[in-house]
Every structure is written in structure tokens, then in C-alpha cells.
């Protein structure tokens, strides 16, 4: 045993040396949280896993990297110690000033950041932005919830009242109301992305108030789904497939599908393209149609007829005969949010200024 161990150990030792094929595309990923959060970070980590079968890519990652100078150190180490030629910075707070600073130091390395905005003329040219629009998937998840609820009351646990979250709350409610016009929803804001205790309290209190579908938008809605299962009510997930947490009550969820995005970047870079030269678009965005995001597998409570209805709605969203934000829409203070006869496409930047909640939602955006 010792002989084989030591031989393997020495081989391992040799393998540590940078003995890589010259044309290998070395990619480093940094996540803000743990890789197994069943949420935002795991969605990215799973995306990175999709690069594994690509022969010309070597990808590695670091998890739990705080949004401080620590991320600069991680990125520099990836570049200097592992020879990374492309960095994927997956958390919103990594961009300014950390990614921008390291990108200026390393003009030959390409940096891609999830979300955020790039300032032309100010920011280094080797930085690109990617993100997805998940409103349509939330709409379909909302439909599933609207079809499932018996009390006609749903609960949404949200991190912050910022446009990205409000879009998900409203599109979920729009989907639910499209099949169940009388449905109402109560929203609780917890104040931050990862507050499991407060998320559990909010979920329990919503269950006490008689909601029978729970969902949320936090770093990972794992606690929300767990509480729902324990209380015997339905849940829909977000960020990542949470069906394992609620074998009885899980309906579906809106989840990210970053694997395709990372594969696409890898192909472009392998073909010699670069964001600095303009041969890779500065912003790479996508929707349900582009498969940046998808519905989680349906749970046992969703009958075949309901699945059909949702599949049909998905088809209509994809061919444009149905839209998420189609007027007239009123907010919960009675004001017109989207006027009659107008439709807002989900890639329209005006949605990133959203500051209202749809009628039928109990909650306050100033909370």
C-alpha cells in the first residue's frame, strides 16, 4: 500500500507543476458564498461544471470570497499561480473597484462579471458583463403557484426592495393572476441576501397567516422551501433547483442555467476572440428563449393538465403572443404602472428602475 501511495503521491507532485498544454484555456471562477448553498453560488458552480467535458478548458474556483480586497488577491493568484487567462467574477459586489483594478493590471486577461454596468471610456476594455432576465420563468412559476393555491394567498420572502427583486415579485404575481385573478400575495423584506434565521421567521409567520404557497428571492431560498415543506404547504424555488428539499410540496422554480453561458464564452475565447478587441460583446444577456434560465422540474402536486397549461404559456411567451408586462397594470397603491395598450419587453432597461408592487400584493417597497 505504501509503495503505491508514494508513487501516486509523486505523480501528483509532478502534476502540480504547470505542465499544461499551451493552448489550454485556463479559467478561474470566484463566488461570494459557499458552492453548496442550493442557491445563487451553486448555480454558478454548476455552470462551471459544464466546462468539465470541454477538452481545451481547465477551470477552477474559489468559494466564500468576500467582496473586499480579498477578491483581488484571489484573482491575482489565479492569474499568477495558475495562469488563468479568463476570470469569471460571479457576485455583484466584485466589479467596482476590485475587478476593474485587477483588470487594469492584467490587460491580457479577460474578466467577465455577472451583472452590474460598464462605463464606456472609464472602465478597462478587458471587462465584460453577463447576466440573464428571468422574469418569464418567474411568470411561469407564478402560474404554477396560482394553479396550486387553495386559500388564494401566497407569500414571498425577499431580500431587498431593489428593482431586480421587485421584477421577480411582480412577474411571479402576474403569472399567478393570469390563471387565478383573485389571488393575493404578501411580501416580507428581510434586508439582506443571506439571513437564514430571519427568512425562516418570515416564512413561518407567512404560513401562520394562511398562505399556502411560499417563494422568495434571497441568496438561496432553501430555508423558505424547507419551512414550506415542514408546514405542509407548497413552495416554488429560485436561483437553483431546490426540489430535493421538499419532495411533497415543491411545485417548480425559476433557476439559472449558467453552463450554457460559460460554454459560449469558452468557445468564443478558444476561437481567439476577446472582449477588449470587441469580438466578444461587452454585454452578453439572455432570456428564457436564450436558455440563460429555466423552470425547475415539476413536483408531484402539479398535475399533467397543469403542466400542459404551463407548457402552452411558455410557448406563447417564446413566440411573442404573450408577454409578462402588458398593460394595463396597476400598482398596489392604485396608480397605473403600465398603461393600457403598452407592453414592456423584458430586456427594456426601463424595468431596471422598477419601484412598485403589483395590485394584489401586500407589501411596501419602502420597507
Amino acid at each position, binding site marked *: 500500500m505504501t509503495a503505491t501511495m508514494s508513487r501516486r503521491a509523486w505523480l*501528483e*507532485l509532478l502534476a*502540480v507543476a504547470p505542465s499544461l498544454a499551451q493552448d489550454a484555456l485556463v479559467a478561474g471562477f470566484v463566488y461570494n458564498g459557499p458552492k453548496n448553498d442550493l442557491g445563487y453560488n451553486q448555480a454558478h458552480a454548476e455552470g462551471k461544471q459544464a466546462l468539465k467535458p470541454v477538452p481545451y478548458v481547465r477551470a477552477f474556483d474559489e*468559494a466564500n470570497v468576500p467582496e473586499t480586497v480579498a477578491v483581488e488577491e*484571489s484573482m491575482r*493568484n*489565479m492569474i499568477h*499561480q*495558475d495562469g488563468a487567462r479568463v476570470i469569471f467574477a460571479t457576485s455583484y459586489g466584485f466589479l467596482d473597484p476590485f475587478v476593474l483594478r485587477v483588470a487594469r493590471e492584467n490587460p491580457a486577461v479577460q474578466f467577465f462579471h455577472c451583472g452590474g454596468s460598464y462605463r464606456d471610456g472609464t472602465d478597462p476594455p478587458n471587462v465584460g458583463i453577463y447576466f440573464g432576465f428571468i422574469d418569464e420563468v418567474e411568470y411561469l412559476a407564478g402560474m404554477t403557484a396560482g394553479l396550486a393555491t387553495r386559500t388564494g394567498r401566497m407569500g414571498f420572502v425577499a431580500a431587498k426592495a431593489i428593482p431586480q427583486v421587485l421584477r421577480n415579485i411582480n412577474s411571479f404575481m402576474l403569472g399567478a393572476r393570469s390563471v387565478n385573478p383573485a389571488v393575493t400575495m404578501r411580501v416580507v423584506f428581510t434586508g439582506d441576501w443571506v439571513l437564514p434565521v430571519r427568512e425562516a421567521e418570515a416564512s413561518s409567520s407567512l404560513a401562520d397567516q394562511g398562505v399556502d404557497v411560499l417563494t422568495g428571492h434571497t441568496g438561496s431560498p432553501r430555508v423558505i422551501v424547507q419551512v414550506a415543506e415542514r408546514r405542509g404547504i407548497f413552495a416554488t424555488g429560485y436561483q437553483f433547483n431546490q426540489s430535493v428539499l421538499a419532495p411533497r410540496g415543491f411545485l417548480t422554480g425559476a433557476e439559472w442555467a449558467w453552463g450554457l453561458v460559460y460554454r459560449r464564452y469558452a468557445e468564443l475565447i478558444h476561437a481567439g476572440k476577446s472582449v477588449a478587441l470587441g469580438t466578444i460583446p461587452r454585454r452578453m444577456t439572455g432570456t428564457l428563449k436564450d436558455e440563460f434560465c429555466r423552470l425547475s422540474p415539476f413536483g408531484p402536486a402539479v398535475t399533467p393538465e397543469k403542466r400542459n397549461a404551463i407548457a402552452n404559456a411558455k410557448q406563447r411567451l417564446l413566440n411573442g403572443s404573450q408577454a409578462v408586462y402588458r398593460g394595463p397594470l396597476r400598482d398596489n397603491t392604485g396608480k397605473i404602472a403600465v398603461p393600457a395598450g403598452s407592453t414592456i419587453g423584458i430586456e427594456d432597461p426601463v424595468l431596471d428602475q422598477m419601484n412598485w408592487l403589483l395590485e394584489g400584493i401586500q407589501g411596501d417597497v419602502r420597507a
Partner: protein
Amino acid sequence: VIGETSSASRFDATLVQITALAGAVTAFALFCACVGASPMGVFASIYKAGFGSWYSWQNSLLRAAPLMLCGLATAIPARAGIITVGNEGAFVVGGLAAAAAGLATASGPAWLCLWIMGLAGGVAGGAWIACAAGLQHYRGVNAVISSLLLNYIGIALLLQLVEGPMRDPGSLNFPATYPLPETHQLGHIPGSRVHYGLVFGITACLLTWFILERSVWGMKVKTVGGNPRAAKLVGLPLGRIILTASFLGGACGGLAGMVEVAAIHGRASQAISAGYGYVGILVAFLARQSPVRVLVVSLLLGAVLASGGILQRDHELPDSTITVFEGIAFLSILASEALTGRFTLRRALGTVTREGANAKS
């Protein structure tokens, strides 16, 4: 005779400690094997990340600098007989005081501003640890417990101030104080990306060694630490010596906080509490409270800390792997401290020969 026994017991203690470290390394290797990584590969990666190239050396030195100062924060009071673990608290309040002082004097020349920052950080950290020492000496409150709790108070104070009165309204996602002007930040040693904190750390270690081993006051400190009753009998001012030694230790921790603010972050925020203080406790115990060994151990642990990322990248180990290693090392060192003098081969042999000699006579 005294010299002989002390060198003999020192030899024993060193032997026990080396055994403890070897045990810790073996346990860590087992851990690596259990989570599916090759132990040899992991150690090779730690070496590569710590000392494999000039770039890696700089990484290690960057981390060694605060560790030296934080190690002294435990080591100096320990020589006067006070065990404190308040390093993180001293570090944080030192950084906070330095940031406040720096922002208040930012309109002045850079050198003056940095001096005031260093002074503020040192005084804040020193007072922090002196509190714990004073509580033990005058009120009988165990300094291990009180200084540990002071860490939480220090961190809470930092969060309260950077999210409240000292907050820069522009720091939206990550509450922080206003930044220091770049001209007023602690620069890099020419030709490297290592900041001058390393010079502070090395100087502090050597100076402490000189004071403890070559000065009358150092002798007094060691007397107080070694045998407080004897020290009292010969008329040494116990309280003053304990408080001064604790203040000096805390000042080192506070200075480390100042360096973190002035050289790394340029502002105070939650990010300055990155755990250097806690690792400093490990440094001091591994170094058996000797300032010169603090220097060496800091460099080694700096390299270990610098390898946290590479273990994730090259071996797909969890990000807490380095913390596991620190924990194992600390536990085995503590265990070895408890066992020192109990199972010593030398003493056992010595007793046998003496008995043999007695029997002959």
C-alpha cells in the same frame, strides 16, 4: 544547576512540541486523504503558494506582517503571566482608531498623518488588552475569558461605527468609512507589493526580543511571569509591569490593525476583521511566546494562509481547509502544553540512573 534543568526542560518542551506539530501534520494529511485529495500534492501546493516563486513569497510576507504583530499581542503579556486572546479585538479597535485619526488629520502632510494613525492604533489596541490584564490583576477576572469577550465587543463597535456615525454615504453595498487619500496610505517596499507593515512586524519582534532578553525591565517582566509571589517579595511593582507588558502587546495588535487600514483597505470596514488576530494566538503558542520564534512562525503560517486559494483551485478542497489545519495545529499544541513534563523520556531515564546510583552506594 538552574541553567541545566531549564535547558533540559526546554529540550523536553521542544521535543514535545515538534512531536505535536508532526502529529498535526499527519492528522491534516489524513483529513486531506479523507476528503479525496492527495496529501503530498496538498503539501506541494502549500509550498508552491507560499514559497514557490517571488510572487508567492510576497503573498506569504504580506500575511506574515500582521501575524507577527498579532503574535506579539499574545506573546508579550504571556511573558508577564497574563494569557490573553484579545488579539482580534485589539486589531479591530486599532484599525478603527487609526482610520478615525487618519481621516481627522488627512489635511496634513502624509508622514504626520501616518505617525498619528500608528500612534492612535497602538494606543487603542494597547488600552484594549491592558483592560483585560487590569481586570485580572486587580479584580481577579480571568483574562482569557475577558479578552475573548472583548473581541466581540471590538467587532460590534467596528460594525456600529462603520454602519453608523463613521459611514461614508457612498459606500452602498459594503458599509465603510470615508477612504483615506491615496497619498496618505502606507506604501510598498520598493520593488515589491509588500507593504511597510512587514518592516513594522520584523522591527517589533526584534525590539521585543531585545527588551525581554537584554534589558532590566525584561528581566522584571519574566520574573513577574515566572513567579509572581517571588516578584512581589523582592518588591517589584507587579501591577505596573503587568499593565505595561499587556499594553505593549495590545499596541502591537493595534498597530497591525492600523497597517490593515493604512496599507490594504485604505478605510475601515467589516473587512478589516479578517481573522489575523485569531491566527495571532496560534502564532504565539506555536512560538512558545518567544518574539524571535514569532517571526519565524508568522512566516510559516503566512505561507499556509496564502495557500487557502490554491487548495480550492488545484485540489477542489473546501474553502475551510486552512481553518481545519489551523484548528488541528492549535489543538495539538495545546495538548502538548498540557502534557509537557509528564511523559518525559529524559526524566524517566534520569530517575532510573539516580536510583541505580543510590542502590550502589
